[in-house]
């Protein structure tokens, strides 16, 4: 359960698929136009999935479904990609860094 004053992330459908503009590919037209934004929870308490009100970092009020409490980033330097090591080996070999082997 989330409490008032906690930093949360909400989700909102800005335009349902049926209301999307015409000049877009079919696959895009078939899905909702959605939004995510973070802010301070204004409701006394709320469960995930409940419609809530937040105040964003610039002081705007936004309403949407509660998605996450204490949201954080998980992007990283990715999993190992062996080709990168191959590039390094090739370049070092051509340039003969440190002299000929």
């Amino acid at each position, binding site marked *: 359960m989330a409490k008032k004053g906690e930093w949360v992330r909400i989700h909102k459908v800005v335009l349902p698929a049926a209301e999307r503009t015409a000049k877009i590919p079919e*696959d895009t037209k078939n899905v909702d136009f959605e*939004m*995510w934004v*973070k802010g301070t929870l204004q409701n006394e308490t709320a469960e995930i999935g409940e419609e809530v009100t937040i105040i964003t*970092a*610039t002081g705007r009020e936004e309403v949407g479904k509660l998605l996450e409490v204490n949201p954080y980033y998980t992007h990283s330097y990715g999993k190992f990609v062996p080709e990168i090591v191959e590039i390094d080996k090739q370049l070092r070999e*051509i340039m003969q860094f440190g002299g000929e082997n």
Partner: protein
Amino acid sequence: MKLAKDYNSVMGRSAEIMKASLGLDFNDFESGSVAFDYEGLMTATGYTIEEIDKIQSRTGVGHTPLLELRNITALARKYAKPGYGARILVKDEAANASGSFKDRRAACAVAHAKKLGYKGVIAATSGNYGAAVASQAAMQGMKCIIVQECYDSKGVGQPEIVEKARKCEALGAEVIQLTVGPELFYEHLSVMEDSGYFNASLYSPFGIAGVETLGYEIAMDCRERFGKDPAMVVCTQAGGGMVTGTARGLIKAGAENTEVVAASIDLTGLHMASDVQFNKKSCTTGHTGFGVPHATNPDTGDVPRSAARPLRYMDRYVTTTQGEVMYMTEMLANLEGLERGPAGNTALAAAFSLAQELPEDEILVVTETEYTGAGKHIQPQLDFARENGIEIFFGNPDQDEPGKNIVLPENPGVFKVKELSLDKMRKSLIKRSVPRAAGKLTAEDIAFLVVDTRSDEAFVKAALDELGVEY
């Protein structure tokens, strides 16, 4: 009275919202037909290049190092005919306050917003510009909202864009993240209207004037160090601001003979507004999906008339591939000790091939690098591509199929730019300009199109004849 905020109501007020959010009436520069007073718009910023330099210098922007890439030059020469392989230099724009050349644009836009008395700034961008506006807003004591196209309908975001959101938040901005689609403009307008913030558009004259210092610095640095202007300057082409601003700066420095080459990653076949294809691309900017439309149809952005008009300034437009840019990014780290973000190396990947066309004693300058970090790095981007079913292998860039594979060059000898037809793009720009005319195109319109396409009267008239348009 509360304004109706539905899609049609907000879009219907777009002209007045844009006017209020820029403090500039674009109608002052309109002819009522195809032509508009571009130079009038550019001087309406009211800032000289010296003043812009002063604004930028106050906030840690500009006068970035111009680094000579000696090992990469030596490597390029191994594949060039004897006596060829120009010296390759790069403007290390990652050294700007927020890590990219976009700081130059943001510095001016935010300073101008502050001068006009706005309380905050807003920008629609999934790129480095968001961090640049957020950084400048922080330095100049203003609020900041960044509107980002970030996710597909499954809520999956490109690691590169997610990192940019993080950076904006780290610099104190509010980030509104959206799914794929041009309706971003509706949300952007709506928030602009409610907040009353300044539209720090990438395409405003303030933004473009900010890039002029980049071209100016390149010319001055080269003269001081080498006693001459660069033979060629290679710019990554996406929205057109880099090409436009850099070329204008070079001209202001008197470097009239420097060839300006635009370079984009070839993403032919991938639709930019497609939900399914959104995560099939493995770079989020610097590609033809932005580069070509912004060259051929500049006035489609978030301002009535774009100050970025790259077709006026480019001598050539070449493409490179995702694989070449990834390989080049690793090359820059491994051979030059510079770990920088991949998208910013688009022009460098092209330069590696272009340098081989020029004699050894010539200078080739690549206009930018950008910061790197989690998500915004070749490993997460290649890993993300692989997770999304993109095949990654070593081979010849000729095998490149955007959205299907990433072909890493099998050796540095296979780097090769492809030429895009400028005449084709010129015709496309003319075709897209025609609907603005009330009736027949005027002599002023023809003169405008000659400059806007960097062609001549015969070319413009022939293109109009082909379209069956009267003038």
